Structure formats: structure tokens, C-alpha cells
């Protein structure tokens, strides 16, 4: 394994090949009814998305799913289906807030913005600290005086945290 790594070529090829294959990724093709239904809520009070409501003979999800099928069969786009459901059941029927309006866009992006801002601030903070730390002076002591200590530590070796 060591020579394999040391050679570096195979390793580089693996990394390169993976990077080249990544563009193949994308959202898997899913059943459209399931996809659209997973963005709608059942309104029976179960707090589950429409496709996951498992209430036996549910008075809400059964007709709603039939309605969904009907609208998809009629050729409506996803957005048209959502709009029709919102028109009939209100905004609560959507399983997630809309990506429009300052309040909702902020809600969607806030966590990511906090993460990125936090990471940038953290890096800046660490760099500032690093530059503030004085470089250690060259050792003026005879390193052989530590030989016994090193030998003792190796003798009782257990990797530390």
C-alpha cells in the first residue's frame, strides 16, 4: 500500500477519475407524482407530507392524492399543481415555505449564510492568532537530556488524544 501511495500515479488517477465522474450526478429521476406529493402536506393534522400520510381511509390524503393524480394527468406543471393546491387549501398545504419574499428567502438562506460567515470569521480569527504567536526561539538546551524521558514514554506507549 505504501509503494502504491508513494508512486502517486494510481492515486492521482483515482482522484481525477472521480472528479470527472461527478458531473454525472444529479437528482435521480423519480416518479413525478411522488415528487410533487412530497412537497405537499396532508391536511388531516397528521403533520406528514401527502405521500406519507398513512391514516387508514384518511379523509384528507385520499381525495388530495386523487386530485394530484388528476392534475398531473391533465398536464399541469409542478408549479401549476402547487398553485392549485394553495388556492384550494391555503399556504399551509405546502411542505416548505416559498422561495420568494424577503422573509422566506432569508429563512432558506440564513443557515448557509451563518455557516459561511462563521467559517470565514473563524479562519480570520485563527490567522490573526497565528500571526500573534511569537516564533519559538531555537533550542538552547542539550536535547540528549530528554533521551531518558523519551525512552520512558515510548516504553509506556499508548497514543494520546
Amino acid at each position, binding site marked *: *500500500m505504501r509503494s502504491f*501511495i508513494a508512486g502517486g500515479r494510481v492515486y492521482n488517477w*483515482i*482522484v481525477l*477519475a*472521480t472528479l470527472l*465522474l*461527478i458531473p*454525472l*450526478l*444529479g*437528482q*435521480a429521476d423519480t416518479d413525478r407524482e411522488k415528487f410533487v406529493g*412530497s*412537497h405537499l*402536506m396532508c391536511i388531516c393534522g397528521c*403533520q*406528514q*407530507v401527502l405521500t*406519507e*400520510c*398513512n391514516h*387508514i*381511509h384518511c379523509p384528507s390524503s385520499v381525495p388530495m392524492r386523487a386530485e394530484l393524480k388528476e392534475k398531473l394527468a391533465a398536464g399541469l406543471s409542478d408549479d401549476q399543481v402547487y398553485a392549485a393546491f394553495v388556492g384550494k387549501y*391555503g*399556504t*399551509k*398545504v*405546502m*411542505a*416548505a*415555505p416559498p422561495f420568494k*419574499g424577503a*422573509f*422566506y428567502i432569508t*429563512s*432558506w438562506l*440564513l*443557515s*448557509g449564510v*451563518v*455557516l459561511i460567515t*462563521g*467559517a470565514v470569521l*473563524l*479562519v480570520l480569527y*485563527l*490567522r490573526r*492568532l*497565528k500571526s500573534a*504567536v511569537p516564533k519559538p526561539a531555537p533550542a538552547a538546551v542539550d536535547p540528549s537530556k530528554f533521551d531518558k524521558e523519551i*525512552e520512558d514514554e*515510548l*516504553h*509506556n*506507549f*499508548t*497514543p*494520546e*488524544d
Partner: protein
Amino acid sequence: MGQVGQFALALAFVVTIYSIASSLLGIRLRNDKLIASGRNAAVCVFALITTAIGTLAYLFLTSDFAYSYIAEHSNRDLPNYFKISSIWGGQEGSLLFWGWLLTIYTALVVIQNRKKHTAMMPYVTSVLMGTSLFFTSMHLFVANPFKLNAAAVGTQVMGVFSPADGQGLNPLLQDPMMVIHPPMLYLGFVGLVVPFAFAMAALITRQLGDTWIRTTRRWTMAAWGILGTGILLGGFWAYHTLGWGGYWAWDPVENASLMPWLIGTAFLHSVMVQEKKGMLKVWNIVLVIMAYIMAVFGTFLTRSGVVNSVHAFAKSPIGGYFLAFIVMALSASFYLLIDRLPYLKNEDQMGSVVSRESSFLFNNLILLVACFSVLLGTMLPSLSDWITGNKITVSKPFFDAVDVPIAIFLLFLTGVGPLLAWRKASTNSLKRNFMIPIAVACATGGVLLIMGVRHFYAWSALVMSAFVGTSIIREFYKGARARATGTGENFFESVVNLTLRNTRRYGGYIAHFGFVLLFIGWSGQAFTSDSEFEAGIGDTFQIHNFTLRVDGFEPVSGQNYTGDRVVVGLYKGGAKVANMFPGRRNYKGTGEQQATSEIAIRETLLEDVYLVFQGGVDDAGKRGAFHVYINPLVAWVWIGGVVLGLGTIIALLPNKKAAPSRRKKEHGAEAIQEGTTVA
């Protein structure tokens, strides 16, 4: 009999106040007897609340429906073990249960430390008892489980009314998992009060060294582990009982348990930086405060009616009291923290951006952002209503989009952190430590793509799992190889002894490995498929490479239910692999009959066949409607949970002392130098 419980609660209230007063007065007057009396009073409160909860258990077991809590959450047909779990089946009882667990923790802490930390302990007792006082007040004045049913004519109360039977326990809670899951969650929540109490005591006494950290580390880890187990058991219950094919729905109540766990995870990591380097002292106290607040906030969320959840208790005025308590605790603790900032100076400096301590900081950042995003999503419906007047729902699509990338990034850091050296990681050590995990991750990524995996999050999670899994296995391999060379032990012995000699480190690695397995299990959700069908006896249904054949319908009955079950043969490649028995039950309750689905699951390491019987579709009862799911990799979620728990238990064990070395001096030093990379 209820009067005994009521009296115990009233007495507990008084003794709790006495305990706080005695402890604080004892410090002021430097009177050890008063301090000891305050401590003994805390143990006495435990005895009194135990009496109260014992009384409640007795009332359930004897079906004393004169008490409204018993009448609303039990009935005569309910089996005894569910009568006991009914204690936490409703608002009042579950609060009493919370308070009782707190008194257990308090008693254990004060007894364990009765001869230690003499300056801090009276304050620890006071903080624990202060929290207890809040809960005892709730039991007595707001959510009293010993309230009698009032028989009224018009508005005039004429006496006590005892119905012939109770309303029964929610059928979904009549599951063995529900006997264990809530106590585990509460034990986890309540356990987070202990480090908070010590942190506050450390701030008050200005003893802000490592003492409070070392004293509470095991308490925190145990509480965190128990809370995590509780969360997983909740998922296990949901998966095996609710019948929607999944185990996590981002329900507000689920989120309420996740938030303190995330903060606890951040604390358990950053506390290592304080122990090792004397840094992050302020940060650690902030985390302890937040974990405590989040534990109380979670309890508030489920009881206030602020959020809609199928798991939440009925809306009650209790929310306002909780909010007031949270604001008070938050203000007091942050005031103390700010006041004591001069005593919380770092003893060392960060060496480099690429170092173990900075990786802990990034780990903390991600965990906190994860907690923030869960909190934001949970509160968003209420915020939207308050700010825009628009009622919205925030469910899986939002949380999946926002939190899954954060979780994958966290998994990445789980692999990176332990490979970095303290202070500064050199380029060479980075190369040496990262090459193999990256190579394995890349190879995994390529294989997955060739296999047709196109779901980005699932692909990323599996690639990261390969990276982290390899790095953990490599750490064990390196350590064990070095030890085997040095001691002459065989490799297996070396792995075991290595782990037992540094339980915290290697227990942590095992916990990380459990986390990897959890991710593998979670990624399976991307490949779930399901279908609904109707079938009669002899009919078959095909899904993926499985065929289901309905073989019969039969009635079933139990102590408090009747129902039907279906015998379904499961075939793969023409051969029968299992018989499945999905069913429906109608639970006896006064007034109405409540139907539930009994799920049949054929579980394997690769995939689960999850079958739900939705009910008969003809009057003869010979034809039914079914919903079948193929859920890949779910078993790894439970296995991951077990491994995570095992790692936590190992990390809690004390280190095994070094045995006399059998190391061969002439080869040992060289071997160890080659084997160890930990700087």
C-alpha cells in the same frame, strides 16, 4: 391515596426552598452544618418526589378514575406495564416524571460529591434545587397530576366524580418501545442540568479551572449518550409503529430532542480543547448554558402549543411559565458569565488554522449552525404567522435542503479532525494521514457512480462515510500495530488493550464509526420506493425483485384490543423468504374505538420490506388494501446507533492501567516511531 402524593409534592416544595436557603446561608455564614442540611434536604426532596410518583403509579394500577389524569390516560383493560408507562403519557405525569428524574440526578450528585468541591457544591445543590423548585411549582400549581374529577351541576361543584372506566392510553403509545423511549429522552434532557449546575457554581465561586469540567465530563457524556439513545429509540418506535415507512419526520418534538443533543456534541468536543490546552473556557460555559436552555426549551416546545406536532401535549398555560423560567435562567447565567470573563482567559493560543484544536472549532461551528437551522425551521411557522401573518408549514423538504448538506460537512470533519495534530499539522503528516482515506473515498465514489447512484446527497454521504470509516480503521490499525510490535501482543489483543488503555480516544473513534454507519443508513432513504395495492387471498403483487402473495386473513385479539391480521408470503427469486403478518387493531376505549396499523417488516442488512395493511376493502373481509415500501440500508441506522452507544460506554470507562511491558527494546522504539502519527 392521591392525598399522599399531593402532600408529598407540597412538602417537596417546602423542602426544596429550605435546601436552597440552607445551602446559600451555609456559605454566607460559613456553617458546615447548614450546608450539610441543605444537601440532606436535596436527598429528602428525591424521597418526597419518589413518593409522589409512586402514588401516581399506584393510582394507575388501581384504576382510580376519580383522578382526572388517571381517567384521561388509562382504562381498566390496559395491561399493567402500559399503566406504568401511562405516567408519562400526558402533560402532568410527564412533568412529574421529569422532575423526579431531576431529583434522582440531584441526589446522586450531592451524595457522590459530599466530600469534594466544598466551595462549589452548595451552589451546585442550589442550582439543581432551583430547577427542581420550578418543576415542583408546576406540579403543585399548574399541572397537578392529583387533580380530582369535579362533579358539577352548572357552575357549582357538587363533589368528586369517578367514571366507571377511563379513556384509555393513546394506542400508538401502547408499544414496548414507548415504555423505554420517553424515560431515555427525559434522562438525557435532565442530565444536562448537572454540567450547567457545576458551570454556574464554578462561575459563582470563580473556580474556573478544569475542576468543574473534569467533574461533569462523565455526567455530560452519559446524559448525551442517553439522549442520543432516546432519540434513536424514538426513530425505532416511529418506524415500527407509525407505518409511514420512515423513522424521522423533522417533527417539532423530534427537533426539540435533537437540538440539545447537537449542543451537547459540540461541548463534548470543545471540552477536550480546554482540558488539553486550557482554551475555549468561555465557549464551553456558553455551550453548557445553551445545552441546558435547549433541554428546557424542548420541554417548553412540546407543552406550550407554540408548534403543531402530533407528539405535542395539549396546549396549556404552562408554556408561559416555561418561557419565563428560560428567560430568567438565560439572563442570570449570561450575567454571571460576563461578570466573570476576566477569570476565563485562555492559557494557550491556537497554533494553526490546520490543527486539531481549530478542527474542533469548525466542528462546533457546524454543530451550532445545525442546531440553529433546526431551531429556525421548527419556529418558522410561528415566526411566519407573527411576522407576515401567513400560516405556513415547514417539513421535510426544508430540513432536507438545509440540514443535509450541513450534516455531510459535519461527517467530513468527523474524519478530518482526528487526523490532525494538536497545535499544527505538517504537510507531511497531512499527506501521510489523508492519502489512503481520500483514495478509498474516491474509489467508492467512482464505484457508486458506475453502479448508477445519481442522488447527490446520498452519493456524498456514502463517499464521506468511506473517507471517515477508512480513517478510523486506519487509526486503530496504526495504534494496534505499534502496540503489537512494542508489547508482543497479537493484533486483536492490541486492539482491545489499545482501546481500554485510552478509552476516551478510542471510544470516541468507535462512536464516530457509529456515526458513519448512521450516515450509510440515512443515505438509503434516497433509494426508497413504495407502492399501494389491493389484493385478496391468492393474489400476488410484484415490487422490485420481491413478490408478495396474500395467503389469508385471520382475527386477532388481546387484553384490550381486537383486530385482523393478514398472512402474506414474501418471495424472492421464486423462493419463499418470509411470512409477514401486517394487521390492524381496534383498541378498547370508552366512547370511541381507535384503529392502528400493525406493521410487518422483513429486515435485512441490505433492505427492509415494510408492509402496511390499510384495511379490508370488502365486507367479507377477504380482500385488503396494502402499502409496501422497499427501504434500503435502514438496518445500518440501528446498528450505527448501537455502535455509537457502545463507543460512548467505552469512552465513559476509566483507562486501564498499564501492565508491565513485554516490549522488546531493540525493535520497539523504531516500530512506534513508524506507527504513531499523533503529534
